[in-house]
């Protein structure tokens, strides 16, 4: 291919820009990473994503794409080797369905659980447990949601790590424990062991410290 220019605007602590890093690395795409300061957004970011003014934004040969799932599908369609989405339309639909479920249901619940306490928190914990059980139903006995190797849904499910770290930072009992959710727990260990994926999570201690600061003064912290 001719001179390719790929830029990714993200932040080190955002699961959404980390998703794009995984996708690009799985495909061996060379890219320039630009770390944004969200309290002082660059003119470039505001120019490339005027609608949402958010990261991640992928800029390919000067043309910007925003919204993490939209970017992931664009990456998969542009660099066709090592596909992230299944080829079968029905399997593709299942991956998209569960990815949407993760962003629409699991992520809001995860944000809520670290900001609530008492009965309300307990309700959210039960909700998340059920959501994770539903995800286990989709994973079944596979190594990853994508099968033998990481796929779209595994990448989308990276937000689970952010929940795990936040709970650990606050000294909460982890919702994702081996006893109650053995299938998903096993999947997470495999995900964190994966050579490509593990390069695309925030460094653990830094992430814990960040979460402590972010949620430490919230209702949920002890």
């Amino acid at each position, binding site marked *: 291919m001719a001179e390719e220019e790929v830029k990714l605007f993200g932040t080190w602590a955002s699961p959404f820009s980390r998703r794009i890093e995984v996708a690009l690395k799985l495909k061996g795409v060379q890219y320039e990473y630009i770390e944004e300061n969200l309290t002082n957004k660059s003119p470039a970011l505001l120019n490339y994503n005027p609608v949402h003014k958010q990261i991640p934004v992928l800029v390919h040969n000067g043309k910007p794409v925003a919204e993490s799932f939209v970017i992931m*599908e664009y990456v998969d369609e542009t660099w066709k080797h090592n596909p992230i989405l299944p080829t079968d339309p029905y399997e593709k639909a299942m991956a998209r369905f569960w990815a949407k479920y993760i962003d629409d249901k699991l992520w809001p619940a995860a944000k809520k659980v670290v900001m609530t306490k008492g009965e309300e928190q307990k309700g959210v914990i039960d909700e998340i447990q059920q959501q994770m059980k539903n995800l286990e139903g989709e994973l079944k006995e596979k190594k990853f949601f994508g099968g033998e190797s990481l796929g779209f849904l595994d990448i989308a499910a990276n937000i689970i790590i952010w929940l795990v770290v936040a709970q650990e930072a606050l000294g909460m009992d982890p919702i994702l424990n081996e006893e109650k959710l053995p299938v998903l727990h096993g999947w997470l260990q495999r995900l964190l062991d994966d050579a490509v994926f593990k390069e695309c999570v925030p460094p653990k201690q830094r992430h814990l410290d960040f979460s402590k600061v972010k949620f430490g003064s919230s209702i949920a912290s002890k």
Partner: protein
Amino acid sequence: MGEEVKLFRSWSSPFALRIVWALEIKGIEYEAVFEDLSNKSPLLLQYNPVHKKVPILVHNGRPIAESFVILEYIDETWKQVPLLPKDPYERAMARFWAKFCEDKVLTSIWSAFIKQGKEQEEALVAAAENLKFLEKEMKGKKFFGGERIGYVDLVLGWLANLVSIFEEIIGLKIVDEEKFPLLYSWMQDFAEAPIIRDNWPPRDKMIVKFQALLDAAIASSSSSSSSSK
């Protein structure tokens, strides 16, 4: 081919209507199963246990839920009359705008309809800001899909019918023809397009339904100062 296509829908769901349009635009034979959402069938609950909602497409016995997911599945399975563009960048733009229509436009216009007082004022301001982006995106095209109806048109299509119903009920303008001339004429063109125009739910029934929803919302917001979800 021995193809079996069923669509679980309701008479009024704008989300299910997207799928009706997609199937009919592509000339796909299907069986419509009308659900009473106050009394969901065992089959609906079996096919969509996670959300228990319509639309659900069942193709040769295999169910798919969530209208965006269904639309992409239909486009990939039946390749005639494509809904999404071919070029990956154009596809990304279509998906971006579809998500914007759902997350921002739909949400703000719904709030402008269902809320009162200050919340309604704020929702109307947000809706206008969002509509400005769409007006700009139209860029003089007839439809968001270009010369013919595409994915984004189907996603936003509810606007062409529901907005005038909302405006009639609350007595306020949401899509002002002067402020949004391109969007306004898109609404007319889309509403009257072949297939689209044949599938709108009965207007009088819709007015009754949404008036009732608004009455219930007003009643519950005035009877309690803090609501629990």
